[in-house]
């Protein structure tokens, strides 16, 4: 495969041709990774909508070094050889991102204290990192009634940020398209037409891909806060899916099953509804060990773990040398 060189915030990396800027940044790791609310690497055509991953391309490529006139969505822009990208080093990007976060929050109910997603919500993380403390929006927020789509999933559109991820899941994972967008503009809503129940083996994955608390697991609703539960990796022989999951324990009891998620909050593998909703006994599973959750997440608070250096440092000798002190400090404890 052809390799191209791209420089993001001054860090140069070689990636396969056709990689998006966002994925190149993820290969570098650390702070230069733009946040992504709608992009999901496992879903085709996702991304480009939330605009939180906007970056500035200060040099188009080796052949055509002109900068791009507008900020670009890094999740949908492929890297070119010699491209130079500014993410957190560009004031313009930081400002634009702040604006996008504000826009995402103006119609969000901010009901985190009663929301099941709190603690693993991407919008919370995003607002914490890039938002402002106060809102300038003084109007009534958009609200919807809660809808039960099937007996296991609840849709609470009020919290939705319209990332379209669940629509892509319904489109690409399940064989009948029962789930889409109705209406347009800020009146658009995710819905199953005429509140039809979603009835499919993989429908539960919409809960995992939802970056906010708009789609929640009815078997877990109001049972517990996620940071009081203990994630454990487990697997079982499943005829329909890979059977690899994360069990969330409260005491002796499994109160929730999700697919294992990586450091960007994306599932490693989609799991079936039997694994997710039906098998909630320890005896159903082979336990592998505690699940590592990224240090930045509230779920890992009070869990002292060794800080993992970003992947780019592991492969780059110059950076290893430059960060030697921190590296030793991290590995010593």
């Amino acid at each position, binding site marked *: 495969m052809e390799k191209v060189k791209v420089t993001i915030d001054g860090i140069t990396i070689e990636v396969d041709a056709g990689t998006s800027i966002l994925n190149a940044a993820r290969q570098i790791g650390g702070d230069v990774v733009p946040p992504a609310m709608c992009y999901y690497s496992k879903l085709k055509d996702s991304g480009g909508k939330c605009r939180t991953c906007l970056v500035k391309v200060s040099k188009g490529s080796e052949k055509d070094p002109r900068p791009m006139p507008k900020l670009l969505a890094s999740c949908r822009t492929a890297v070119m050889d010699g491209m130079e990208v500014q993410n957190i080093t560009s004031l313009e990007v930081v400002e634009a991102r702040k604006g*996008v976060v504000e826009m995402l929050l103006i119609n969000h109910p901010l009901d985190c204290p009663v929301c099941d997603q709190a603690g693993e919500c991407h919008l919370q993380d995003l607002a914490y990192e890039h938002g402002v403390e106060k809102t300038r929006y003084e109007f009534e927020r958009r609200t919807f009634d809660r809808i039960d789509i099937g007996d296991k999933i609840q849709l609470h559109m009020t919290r939705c940020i319209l990332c379209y991820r669940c629509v892509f899941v319904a489109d690409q994972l399940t064989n009948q398209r029962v789930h889409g967008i109705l209406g347009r*503009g800020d009146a658009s809503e995710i819905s199953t037409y005429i509140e039809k129940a979603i009835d499919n083996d993989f429908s539960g994955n919409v809960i995992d891909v939802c970056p906010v608390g708009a789609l929640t697991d009815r078997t877990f609703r109001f049972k517990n806060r996620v940071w009081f539960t203990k994630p454990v990796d487990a697997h079982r022989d499943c005829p329909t899916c890979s059977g690899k999951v994360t069990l969330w324990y409260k005491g002796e009891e499994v109160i929730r099953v999700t697919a294992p998620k990586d450091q960007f909050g994306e599932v490693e593998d989609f799991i079936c509804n039997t694994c997710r909703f039906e098998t909630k006994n320890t005896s159903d599973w082979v336990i592998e060990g505690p699940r590592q959750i990224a240090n930045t997440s509230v779920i890992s608070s009070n869990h002292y773990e060794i800080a993992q250096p970003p992947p780019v440092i592991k492969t780059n000798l110059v950076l290893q040398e430059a960060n030697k002190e921190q590296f030793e400090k991290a590995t010593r404890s």
Partner: protein
Amino acid sequence: MSRKLLLEHINVPGINTFDVYRQNGGYRSVEKALKTLSPDDIVEEVKKSGLRGRGGAGFPTGMKWSFLAKPEGVPRYLVCNADESEPGTFKDRYLMTYIPHLLIEGMIVSSFALGVNTCYIYVRGEMMPQICILEKAIVEAKNAGFLGKNILGTGYDLEMYVQPGGGAYICGEETGLLESLEGKRGTPRIKPPFPAVSGLYNCPTVVNNVETIAAVVPIINDGADEYMKIGIGRSTGTKLISAGGNLNKPGVYEIELGVPVEEFIYSDEYCGGIANGKRLKAVVAGGSSVPILPANLILKTVNGESRLMSYESLADGGFVSGTMLGSGGFIAFDEDQCIVRNTWNFARFYHHESCGQCSPCREGTGWMEKVLHRLEYGHGKLSDMDLLVDVSKKIEGNTICPLGDAAAWPVASAIRHFRDEFEWHVNDPKSAMERNYGLAHYADPLEIEVKG
């Protein structure tokens, strides 16, 4: 009397029928193009003529055509964008209603130039009469041998279809239009890839405005050199302007680019001045999405030169003191019009028409509309103006398609030029509900900076 290229025969009775149109020199360009010119010659000719897209952005048409990818064995498409729904613009509807064969003639020549065998005219859903007119005209052209298989015995095949849209403004954005044409939700695609590489059904596609395609006809008939003589600088040829608002003679005018704005508003050949003897307060020069300008800035640039109806002259001064030619929807406001109410009306339109795909536009247009509503009805605050400018900046340039920009520009420019009228609405809400702000100083001669 200025030269007319598109509307030359508009007053001939029955020009909407094939026979009368043909007798008045119609379909000459098809004969000329198919029999004597090669496709590349036509593209070169259009390139040379300096014709710029008449839909709003003003991108050179010949250049757009030359970007079209031409892979082997893949069909190419030409799509005519007749989804004209910009408030203030009604030139395409006029052209399609009264002289539909001009569009069809242009479509045939353009399709031949691009090597297209299937082309579409995507018409806005509300324009049902125009859809019927076009379909009738297509049948007439087909019966006369100008469409279908082996046109004029040259071996060139072309099928033309009219597709009614659902009546959404967003479907006028070229990728939104293509999505809609494919039968999906009309939401703009993320670019790249551009339609020239992967457009309709993932095939290379050119999307052009009705007037752009119609303008190809005189270019082929008379040659690019003749076309270039009309106009000024890089704005060549003629442009249809749909004039509306408080004018004595509103309507569609074909102007030679480069006519002074003052002449366009006040001369009897064109709009004939402001209605009821009132004075001019402000002008939206190119459809609702371009910045609004007060009377003094629309007639003269900040350098004191008189402003002309051309792409460059209207844009003189950038967004600080200029505007854009846009799609040619010329709206004049007299001294009795309220700019705050008008801005709110525009914001309401963009809020309603935002597709809801990307967050800055979906949330920001609604936010701006609500703040403007509050200002108009006397509940505003002085900080609202800064808020509006800030929100418009957060939308501008950060969205998937230009609708975000189009929503942000009118609001930002109205506050830039008419700030005291907004402040008056906040400070004196009672009077603001009872009367309008009036002309104030908006027509006062500008203080010209003396350089040196």
